[in-house]
């Protein structure tokens, strides 16, 4: 006898949650706001309990918005005093949002780098100066992982680095805490490194997409200047924390990485395109060409030269792009219909100080992201922050960019559980460490991250932004 599974129940609750607002009349919320609330509820429930894959929910969100909230939809064909419906192209257009194109460029580059072993060879070269002492090897591994994950997916970087550390772990005494330290250093560094650039990890895209909807464009370099120093200090402290918690017993690690750079013409072209694109991205403030525009260069060159072939195009992680696009799209309606503003005006914000609000948003983002997809957490929180800032209820000094950054960065600082991030899941799967090790270390890093985000939001980011 097959009873209702957990997934069936989640779907049922989601659908009921979607229907309810249609029969309510909530004071202070526009008619369109009710519909947006419906979409928000079903999306939030589906994203949180995952009865369907998170990208499928995002695709559904776009359809629901086109159907119920666009000018071409069934409910709001006319502009009213309360709601100016967006054209449906605003919702489906999120798929070609500049940040999506930037990510596309990043995917294509990373893909080519993996195909020609550029990631492995860079790792081999970059690790050399760190010698053979365990503590410096771990530092080296973390620096390289952080650097690569700033431009590649955190997960792919972790998988690659695992091939580097597993042989070391295998040669280390089972009782040596070094094993745990090593196995944690990689996913943690990957999670943290992802914060460093706009293309590092999808939550960054959600933040940048939401800000661009408000007419605020964050340049690649600007993001790096904002996030880079935070990444460096959190990475450094994570290193110290891991050494302190899992003090290595052995005094030398055999690190013998073999390999040579491929020297065929395709490989050399990939090196050149990779180098040129990264250089153009990180010098955006000098030449002023937007990073999304630059992202088209590697896509074009690699396609023209056949390095990005038909199979390669098919295998790109399109679901991540849908996921981010759905998030940006949902944000449009939450703000446009006044839903986000209605949610936040239910709280008397003026009694809170800005410091308190920064801490709250950071804490909520970190806690949520430990259990949910980082992208989903950022997606659900960003519209609230945007409305807080644009409606003015939070009072003077509450900067939109600032609070968006707080949310985006905090989402990536969640790494207490195996389910927090795919890199964590990889580390746990090796069987080298237990969840309690990850939770302890992740908690310390989360708390330190919370403090650092608060300090940066109070003292450093305002300097750069103003």
């Amino acid at each position, binding site marked *: 006898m097959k009873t209702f599974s957990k997934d069936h129940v989640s779907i049922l609750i989601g659908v009921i949650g979607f229907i309810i607002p249609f029969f309510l009349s909530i004071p202070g919320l526009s008619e369109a706001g009710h519909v947006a609330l419906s979409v928000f509820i079903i999306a939030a429930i589906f994203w949180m309990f995952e009865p369907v894959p998170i990208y499928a929910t995002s695709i559904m969100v776009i359809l629901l918005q086109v159907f119920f909230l666009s000018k071409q939809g069934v409910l709001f064909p006319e502009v009213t005093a309360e709601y100016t419906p967006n054209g449906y192209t605003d919702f489906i257009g999120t798929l070609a949002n500049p940040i999506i194109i930037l990510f596309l460029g990043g995917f294509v580059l990373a893909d080519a780098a993996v195909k020609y072993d550029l990631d492995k060879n860079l790792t081999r070269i970059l690790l050399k100066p760190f010698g053979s002492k365990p503590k410096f090897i771990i530092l080296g591994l973390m620096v390289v992982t952080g650097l690569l994950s700033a431009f590649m997916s955190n997960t792919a970087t972790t998988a690659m680095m695992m091939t580097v550390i597993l042989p070391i772990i295998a040669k280390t005494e089972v009782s040596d805490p070094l094993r745990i330290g090593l196995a944690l250093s990689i996913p943690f560094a990957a999670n943290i490194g992802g914060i460093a650039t706009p293309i590092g990890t999808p939550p960054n895209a959600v933040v940048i997409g939401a800000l661009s909807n408000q007419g605020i464009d964050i340049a690649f370099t600007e993001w790096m200047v904002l996030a880079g120093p935070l990444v460096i200090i959190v990475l450094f402290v994570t290193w110290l924390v891991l050494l302190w918690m899992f003090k290595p017993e052995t005094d030398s690690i055999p690190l013998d990485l073999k390999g040579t750079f491929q020297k065929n013409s395709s490989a050399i072209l990939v090196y050149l395109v990779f180098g040129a694109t990264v250089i153009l991205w990180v010098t955006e403030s000098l030449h002023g060409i937007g990073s999304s525009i630059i992202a088209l260069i590697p896509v074009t060159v690699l396609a023209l030269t056949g390095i990005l072939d038909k199979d390669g195009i098919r295998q790109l992680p399109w679901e991540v792009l849908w996921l981010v696009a759905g998030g940006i799209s949902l944000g449009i309606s939450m703000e446009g219909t006044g839903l986000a503003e209605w949610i936040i005006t239910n709280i008397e914000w003026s009694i809170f100080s800005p410091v308190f609000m920064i801490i709250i948003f950071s804490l909520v983002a970190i806690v949520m992201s430990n259990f949910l997809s*980082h992208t989903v957490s950022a997606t659900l929180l960003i519209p609230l922050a945007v409305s807080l800032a644009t409606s003015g209820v939070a009072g003077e000094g509450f900067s939109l960019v600032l609070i968006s950054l707080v949310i985006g960065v905090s989402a990536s600082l969640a790494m207490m559980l195996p389910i927090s991030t795919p890199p964590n899941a990889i580390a746990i799967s090796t*069987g080298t460490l237990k969840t309690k090790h990850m939770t302890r270390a992740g908690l310390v890093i989360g708390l330190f991250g919370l403090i650092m985000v608060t300090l940066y939001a109070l003292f450093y980011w305002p300097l750069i932004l103003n």
Partner: protein
Amino acid sequence: MDHKIYILIVEDELEVMDALVKDLENFEAFFPVETANDTREAQEVIDYIIDHGHRIGLILCDHVLPGKNGVDLLIDLQSNEDTIKSKKVLVTGQAGHEDTILAINKANLDHYISKPWTEEGLQEVVRNQLTDYVIENEKNLLSYMQILDAEKLSEAMRTKKMTDH
């Protein structure tokens, strides 16, 4: 995981079978082991496993068996959609030149273990074969990192375009 990946051992001598099963104990928690004494029984076991939605990851097969021989069984399995991807290993001391060639050419034999085997040698072969099997056929490789070749699995994940979410 909704489906299990089985290891099937086909061997008619009880003592040999016991030794094989004992040497593969480590794998049992991840890959349930089933046994058959001849090719007819093997076919029944396979049908049963497949009918229940599970898969055969690896077949360790003796050659000289009552009734049809081991190589013939492997050739049959190679022409069956459900078992074409299963890794096929002969464990034998008595397969002649001809039969071995047949097994390689027609059954796409993945490995040949000659009796007597060593415990470590056998486990290494099984680990390698199953690693290849899951890389070729499974979506989620993480569940096998502890028991199989973690380095090879990581390398496979690196090239499989894994993403954040």
